């Protein structure tokens, strides 16, 4: 059968094969009519790898049918070849697209674990549809170390763990003895997620594994299984460990994130000589929501290593500045990524004084930092800021115009709507026009529908066309 039609909960799902012809498609309209009020008409194209122009015309007919009934038409599981043909025919705006794993059998879904591009999505789907059949099939895949497909075993374990299903805990523990590193890797992670304290000591043994991924996974699980004794144990391990182990331990401490963990991490930093490790320790310090962490990062802005300075500036964006705005402001003129991250850190709470200072520095800084300044000004008000942003709308650089328009849209909506309308009609860059469209979408001026219809006719950029179609509900 080339077409099968089913309706469920007000939704019609029409499965179409590659060989479907006009007579097959002709069955759709009566079936849809008979179904009465539908929330959506879905065409499942998982079995269609290529599409002819005649078949495209049939899909357009279904789109028209949906349009006449004011029911959205959704194309499910579209393969790349079909998508490209629809793109070439400029029909992407006619349909919504969705991956729907409920159209596949359990065996087909498990087979998709073999494809790295689908595996995580399929696992997500199983977790949200963890039925008895799914549980049974996945559990069967982890029962023996002799199972012949380690990739399927890896993702079965990951899925069981993410569903927090500990019914097969003995089988899961046994997978630590697998000959396949990917299976051991996922087992270590899953035992951490399931809080399996009895495996903790064995997981500790993987911290010194030559296989970095196993050591890294062990770190993540130890953090989840940690108690009061672990911080001291980790501090001791760090003293004798390699660079890699010290970085992993720092990551564990950041995840534990208590006072003792911060003290150990600070002590590690004080002793550390290797710049690559110091850079990572700096990054991990920023995960602590403590004034002492901010103070340390502020000091590290003057570190001898440029990489550490950059990591400190980036970390300050995470921790907040806690009264250190003046020190950070001085770094804006330094140049490079330190300036950039300094502006990013300032941007979160951009005061009037900071805004004035950033505007004053604008002409002396590099383009990437200029963009960060424009973004930061999106958090500031006042006529000076407004005028400054307005002037940037005529800059030659499209990214400058886009960022300035975006910031105007955040703080000065009245002006932004008028400017956005001008720019969507006249700016040469699709990115600026897209930004203008987003601003208009948010502000929704009285003539919004008229603008959209006009743009739909005049703008030939595909991204603008797609967005306008979406907004017009086409």
């Amino acid at each position, binding site marked *: 059968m080339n077409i099968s039609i089913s309706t469920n909960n007000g939704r019609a799902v029409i499965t179409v094969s590659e060989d479907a012809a006009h007579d097959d498609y002709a069955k759709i309209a009566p079936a849809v009519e008979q179904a009465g009020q539908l929330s959506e008409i879905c065409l499942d194209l998982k079995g269609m*790898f290529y599409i002819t122009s005649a078949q495209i015309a049939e899909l357009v007919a279904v789109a028209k049918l949906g349009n006449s009934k004011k029911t959205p038409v959704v194309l499910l599981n579209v393969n790349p070849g079909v998508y490209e043909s629809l793109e070439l025919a400029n029909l992407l705006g006619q349909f919504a697209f969705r991956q729907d794993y409920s159209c596949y059998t359990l065996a087909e879904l498990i087979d998709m674990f073999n494809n*790295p*591009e689908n595996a995580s999505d399929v696992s997500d789907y199983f977790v949200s549809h963890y039925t008895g059949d799914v549980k049974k099939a996945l559990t069967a895949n982890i029962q023996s170390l002799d199972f012949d497909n380690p990739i399927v075993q890896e993702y079965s374990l990951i899925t069981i763990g993410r569903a927090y299903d500990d019914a097969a805990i003995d089988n899961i523990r046994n997978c630590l003895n697998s000959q396949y*590193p990917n299976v051991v890797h996922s087992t270590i992670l899953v035992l951490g997620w399931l809080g399996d304290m009895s495996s903790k000591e064995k997981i500790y043994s993987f911290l010194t594994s030559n296989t*970095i991924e196993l050591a890294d996974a062990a770190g993540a699980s130890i953090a989840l299984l940690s108690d009061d004794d672990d911080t001291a144990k980790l501090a001791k391990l760090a003293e004798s460990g390699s660079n890699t182990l010290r970085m992993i331990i720092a990551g564990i401490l950041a995840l534990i994130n208590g006072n003792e963990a911060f003290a150990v991490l600070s002590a590690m930093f004080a002793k550390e000589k290797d710049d690559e490790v110091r850079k990572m320790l700096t990054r991990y310090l920023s995960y602590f929501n403590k004034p002492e962490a901010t103070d340390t990062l502020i000091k590290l802005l003057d570190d001898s290593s440029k990489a550490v300075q950059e990591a400190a500036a980036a970390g300050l*964006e995470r921790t907040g500045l806690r009264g250190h705005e003046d020190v950070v402001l001085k770094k804006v003129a330094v140049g490079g990524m330190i300036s950039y*991250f300094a502006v990013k850190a300032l941007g979160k709470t951009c005061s009037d004084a900071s805004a004035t200072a950033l505007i004053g520095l604008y002409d002396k800084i590099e383009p990437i930092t200029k*963009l960060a300044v424009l973004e930061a000004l999106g958090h500031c008000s006042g006529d000076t800021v407004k005028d400054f942003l307005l002037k940037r709308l005529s800059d030659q650089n499209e990214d400058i115009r886009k960022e300035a328009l975006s910031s105007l849209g955040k703080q000065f909506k009245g002006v932004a709507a008028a400017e956005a309308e001008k720019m969507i009609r006249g700016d040469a860059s699709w990115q600026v026009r*897209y930004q203008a469209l987003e601003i208009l979408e948010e502000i929704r001026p009285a003539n919004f529908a008229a603008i959209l219809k006009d743009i739909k006719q005049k703008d030939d950029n595909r991204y603008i066309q797609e*967005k306008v179609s979406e907004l017009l509900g086409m």
Partner: protein
Amino acid sequence: MLNNIVKIRNDEFNELRDIIYKNSAITFMESKKYLLENRLSKRLNELGHKTYKDYINYLKYDKDNKGEMERMINLVTINETYFLRERPQMDHLVKTTLPEMLAAGKKQCRIWSAACSTGEEPYSLAMLMTEAGLYNKMKIEIMATDINSDVVEFAKKGEYRSMSFRGTPEQFTKTYFTPDKTNFLIKPEIKDKVRFNTGNLTGPTIGAQMGKFDVIFCRNVLIYFDAETKTKVVTMFYNALNAPGYLYLGHSENISKLTDKFKVINFGSGLMHTKAK
């Protein structure tokens, strides 16, 4: 650890896929958004960028970013691969196609691993053919190419991290690799069986450069090309194959609507496209 997935906005995705297309001719469909997120989030975290907009600005404007564009292209275009990936096709070559060629009196075989990425595929073929004793029965030459010079250099070194062995039996690793700190070095007797070169499958001279082959492996690559480029590449493969010749593509790469020149053989766990004698 501490590597969060950074979600990409539509406008960021559109701009990034334009950048990728301009720099590699590879198209990313809307439905592949998650792929960019999965492959680039770690890099964003390393660099301290919280959004893709920041990362795109870094790509475009940071004067000290030391080849970040190339790095990004590599991250999003290099196939995630490992030794013996999609093994049934390799087994079909070793257990069916090559024995049939031998039975037909063929004494030599040229194999092309097109778009070989970091070399796991051609080395896997060399290992399986060694296990099967085929090198004692015929002269076998494996050529491997990729557009990316970095991955070709990587493949030539033959030094792999453990995750290249996901799905590889331990015994296999012990037989053909020597552990070296955190890496595994491929043994010379396998390394010497593969010749690597850079090569662009969409370039005008690739077919002439490579010569004639009996077998071509090109898996999970065509999916990244648009229909026109796919047709061009498949035609080039057809011309590069002897008759009979055998083309192995990825399991989701159906070319029946692009060309009718190949006969498709379904051997149960995969497909093979045959150029008839």
